[in-house]
């Protein structure tokens, strides 16, 4: 990164719409998915290997969220897992480590974003004892950026496709392909239904040049909402019937796998069947009831990441902000359990 990117992003994104994007622009895509379980927020970013090298990723936390950015420096606030392609060694590298807070005063002159930030988190990415520390800058948004969200999280990445030995080149020519980090006790989602969009801007490098291609900035967005699974149990003629609904942001979730457990107590449950949610999010299952003791049931729904580009990108950001358009919208993978239901014989 050779110029203060954050300031440049704001200024140049406006002008970018007037500039023809690079020839590789059409191929550039990425996805982001965000899920919240309890106090944990998990953010999963995936960048295809064929996408131009990424210079910066700006993740905007939707309006309505609040963030606790007061953790003392060097506090462990989460974990990170990533995959990178080490071009210099021809290997895919799994990276893993902790997310820790850093002292923002130590980052006021970082080339990526030279300012005093509300918080700086370090993604400590380790493989075989080598640790790559990737700072992530967190700030409340201001001005026009408030239209994108309440907070901005910014990550800058070094280029991998410049010649070996070029100052600032990524370690081992590593190209980040996938990163998932979870922070705990930081974000609080707003109450209420609906899916909220986490707008995320990806600014690529001009291939082989190591300079950010601001005109190539494109968006990916995560659609996130609180997930829940209901469970209702009833009995009739020696049979039980279970039913419920899976929702996300108050909207029905189709195709979720529902694992059903039953047992003699609320804490001693064993697998007892499965179901899949319908287009309305509803599911049901039934079976025989035997014995004279109460029976406890619990259901757990699991969904994988789901593409929602058609609906989610229907209203893309202005070209002044994301000249490369909206490349994807994604619903996160999650697992959620129902309350335990009890049936008396």
């Amino acid at each position, binding site marked *: 990164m050779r110029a203060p990117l954050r300031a440049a992003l704001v200024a140049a994104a406006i002008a970018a719409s007037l500039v023809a994007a690079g020839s590789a622009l059409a191929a550039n895509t990425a996805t982001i998915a965000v899920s919240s379980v309890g106090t944990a927020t998990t953010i999963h970013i995936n960048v295809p290997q064929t996408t131009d090298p990424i210079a910066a990723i700006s993740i905007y936390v939707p309006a309505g969220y609040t963030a606790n950015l007061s953790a003392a420096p*060097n506090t462990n606030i989460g974990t990170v897992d990533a995959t990178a392609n080490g071009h210099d*060694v*021809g*290997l*895919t*590298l799994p990276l893993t480590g902790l997310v820790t807070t850093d002292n923002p005063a130590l980052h006021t002159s970082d080339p990526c974003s030279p300012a005093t930030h509300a918080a700086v988190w370090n993604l*400590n990415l380790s493989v*075989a004892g*080598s640790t790559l520390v990737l700072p992530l800058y967190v700030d409340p948004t201001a001005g026009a950026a408030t239209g994108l969200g309440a907070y901005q999280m910014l990550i800058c990445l070094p280029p991998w496709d410049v010649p070996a030995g070029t100052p600032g080149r990524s370690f081992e020519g590593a190209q980040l392909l996938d990163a998932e980090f979870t922070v705990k006790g930081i974000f609080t989602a707003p109450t209420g239904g609906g899916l909220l969009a986490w707008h995320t801007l990806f600014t690529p490098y001009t291939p082989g040049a190591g300079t950010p291609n601001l005109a190539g900035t494109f968006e990916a967005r995560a659609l996130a909402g609180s997930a829940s699974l209901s469970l209702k149990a009833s009995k009739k003629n020696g049979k039980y019937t279970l039913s419920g609904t899976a929702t996300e942001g108050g909207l029905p979730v189709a195709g979720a796998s529902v694992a059903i457990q039953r047992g003699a107590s609320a804490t001693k449950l064993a697998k007892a069947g499965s179901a899949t949610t319908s287009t309305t999010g509803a599911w049901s299952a039934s079976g025989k009831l035997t014995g004279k003791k109460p029976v406890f049931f619990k259901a757990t729904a699991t969904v994988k990441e789901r593409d929602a580009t058609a609906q989610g990108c229907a209203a893309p950001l202005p070209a002044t902000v994301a000249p490369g358009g909206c490349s994807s919208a994604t619903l996160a993978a999650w697992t959620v359990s129902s309350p335990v239901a009890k049936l008396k014989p």
Partner: protein
Amino acid sequence: MRRAALIALAIACLFAVPAAGAGRADTPGVTATQILLGGTGPLSGPESQYEPVLTGAQAYFAYVNDHGGVFGRKIVYKVEDDSYDPAKTVQFTRQLVEQDKVFAIFNTIGTEHSLAIRGYLNQMQVPELFVGSGATSIAAQHAQFPWTLGLLPSFEGEGSIYGRLIAAGHPTAKIAVLYENDEYGTDLLAGLKRGLGSHAGQIVATASYEPTDVTVDSQVQQLKSAGADTFVIFALPTQAIQAFVSAAKLGWKPTEYVTSISIDPAVMQIVHVNAGAQAGVGATSTAFLHDPTNPTQLKSPGVLLYRQVMKKYLPNEDWKAVAHLYGMMAAYAMVDALKHAGRNPTRQSLLQAATHMNEINPFLLPGLKLTTSPTNYYPIGNTYLVRYLHGFWNVLGKPLKTS
């Protein structure tokens, strides 16, 4: 946990004694309150994977310092980044000796790097202790260079173990060998041939690589083409990973052996990410260190102590990297030598202590000891066979001699 606590307590008691007087006036690097050690290694650059060897040692010294130091003196370990360039190793070592006036050079990483400074340090009579090498030239030339002492088991001895194993268990093997084209690789290869004895003619192909080579794919292709059914990998971790991956992608399924330098848990993790979960399974190696990720070793006192030190002094570092544990093992040996060098240590007394060791080191696998004498400069003379099964390196049988 109790045994770890006892070890910690023992260490604390050992060092929590009244501060000694100032060192002799002619002893560089030793004051009433401090012992200054120096070292070099790759803190940056492509070989910075070895950095944990240095930071692990620093963490253990910090732990010892917090428990009273050595005879009341705190150990300061000044490490200079040589970027794995022997020329820089020489430059920084001279600086450490002549400007910083260190008491001793400790934990130098790399055979070539250690050899590059050996003559100078021996001329200056500065101890060069626990060098990260098992090269024959370092351990076997102790009469000429008495101030230089290695730490790793003999590379040649390790190679010999594989040779004996193959000769006994697979006497008709057709053997292919990938080795690094330097003393590390050639020592291992020489040992393999020695261990194979009359079976040495069953080596059907060898291929070397330079440490700067980007890939070893062509070498592995060449070795496979020789019709070998046994693949011996005498390579550093990156090239070892590439070798496993390349063999798997070629559909080559030989019986595999890999040098102990390359059995960090991350090696197989990366192999599996690149070549599938079955790649490398069943491979044989040797090990002398605990593996903090091995479920059978999680409660060993050495691993508990290691985790304790990592948690306090390197909380954001990768505790799964065995190189940290190696660094602590080396530092433990250094502390032991400093202790035996006396309350008013001199470079001569430190060398005397380092060449008369008989130490149970908690970071070594059970049954292994650090032993030295004026004629034995291989402190770790035994090692275990290990085999990669069920997601980790399983320790097999009894210790085997490497020297």
